[in-house]
């Protein structure tokens, strides 16, 4: 009896392995080229600038100790200009008369050309120096103590954490813009934040609320979003601060 020829039945394993390796290679190729990754919108870095002093590098660093922050470092106004002196009278009293008037008139004419310009420049410098001194004084008065607290709401500018509350406030403000939602007319939520020494949000407590649940949820979302960006408080201590959330913005209490 004749037998049917045995058909070589090659296994399916080899093509399957080739296919798997091919898919793996394609996956890594696309992953490294960034083609199959979802586009991530990167937020532009936020820079906080102390408009009175120099830009703050980091809130942990405290206020920059540069001119303007320390009483000793405040630039002194320039020395007041010397009093204007009239030219010395060289003509003797006895010799007063018509002939003596001629050299005086001649000197006066020479003075107008050179010395008058010098005086004018001196006067301008004096005026400018006074303006600068007045502006510095006004800024010191606005800052409160006049002891380097410019730009810093509470501290002296050198105290640890003097700028931290403002930084946290800014981060909350940024997050609040993307999460704000409310249904009542003027919702208000007062929240107490406690930040641990390592910068993690230890707890938050809603101390007062106008009862708008959606606004409360958006405040919680704000805190959740912002807490990722909290740095550790300076001085290695816990930080506690009340923040008042309103649709118009966030205020510190």
């Amino acid at each position, binding site marked *: 009896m004749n037998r049917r*020829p045995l058909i070589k039945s090659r296994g399916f394993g080899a093509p399957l392995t080739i296919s798997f390796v091919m898919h793996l290679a394609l996956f890594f190729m696309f992953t490294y080229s960034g083609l199959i990754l*979802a586009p991530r919108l990167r937020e532009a870095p936020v820079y906080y600038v102390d408009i009175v002093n120099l830009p703050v590098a980091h809130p942990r660093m405290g206020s920059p100790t540069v001119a303007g922050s320390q009483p000793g470092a405040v630039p002194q106004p320039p020395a007041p200009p010397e009093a204007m002196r009239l030219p010395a009278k060289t003509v003797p009293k006895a010799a007063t008369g018509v002939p003596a008037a001629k050299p005086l008139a001649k000197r006066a004419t020479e003075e107008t050309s050179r010395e008058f310009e010098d005086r004018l420049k001196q006067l301008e410098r004096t005026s400018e120096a006074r303006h600068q001194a007045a502006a510095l004084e006004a800024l010191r008065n606005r800052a409160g103590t006049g002891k380097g607290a410019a730009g810093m709401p509470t501290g002296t500018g050198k105290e640890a954490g003097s700028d931290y509350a403002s930084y946290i406030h800014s981060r909350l403000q940024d997050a609040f813009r993307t*999460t704000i939602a409310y249904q009542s007319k003027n919702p208000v939520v007062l929240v107490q934040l406690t930040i641990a020494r390592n910068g993690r949000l230890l707890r938050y407590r809603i101390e007062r609320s106008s009862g708008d649940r*959606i606004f409360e*949820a958006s405040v919680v979302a704000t805190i959740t979003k912002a807490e990722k960006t909290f740095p550790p408080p300076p001085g290695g201590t816990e930080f506690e601060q009340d923040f008042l959330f309103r649709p118009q913005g966030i205020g510190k209490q």
Partner: protein
Amino acid sequence: MAFFAGTGLVVKLVLLILIYFSVVSWAIIFYKLLQVHRANSESEKFLEFFWKTKRFDAINAQVDRFTNSPLTVLFSEGYGELKKLMDKGEHKEEPDVISTDLGGIENISRALRRATTSEITRLEKYTTFLATTGATAPFIGLFGTVWGIMTAFKGIGETGSASLAVVAPGIAEALIATAIGLVAAIPAVMGYNHFQHKIRVLIGEMDSFSTEFLNIVQRSFAKK
């Protein structure tokens, strides 16, 4: 990997199914390409050898050289049936002659038809998976996309913000499912159509060979 980890459970499942479909489809494409190529080339060689060699027993001795050709199987089945009929007539006066009255030709024809059917089944094996992938993968991907967009909108509702930063990543992750569905389906459909055409050509060759084989048997062995 970070992208995959960022998707939801349903979208992950959809992506895994689609990747499975794609991997298996490409494996079938490679397998069938090799199979059909060998079947074509060895059938060509076998036909050349068949028409050069006059004796069936000499051809039967060499069939092992063309194991990937479906025509070899047909020849073996037809020759086997012919041999049986001839062995049946050994005790008669004319041992090399088969009787048409007893339906000898029909027996051989039936054997050839059966062999053709089994070869078609062998050649078409796995191609249904390609058809299934081509038909269903886009819909599976679409399902993943719809689910992903639903999740993204839910997230928008929870955060209360409809900014681009919130909406865009979710939508992009969802659309990946449709893209992978299409990536799996397009080669599967192309492969399926290609192999269907090649298999039809081979079926035509098998039909022609069966007819030629029956003609030879009838001319050479059937009682007048």
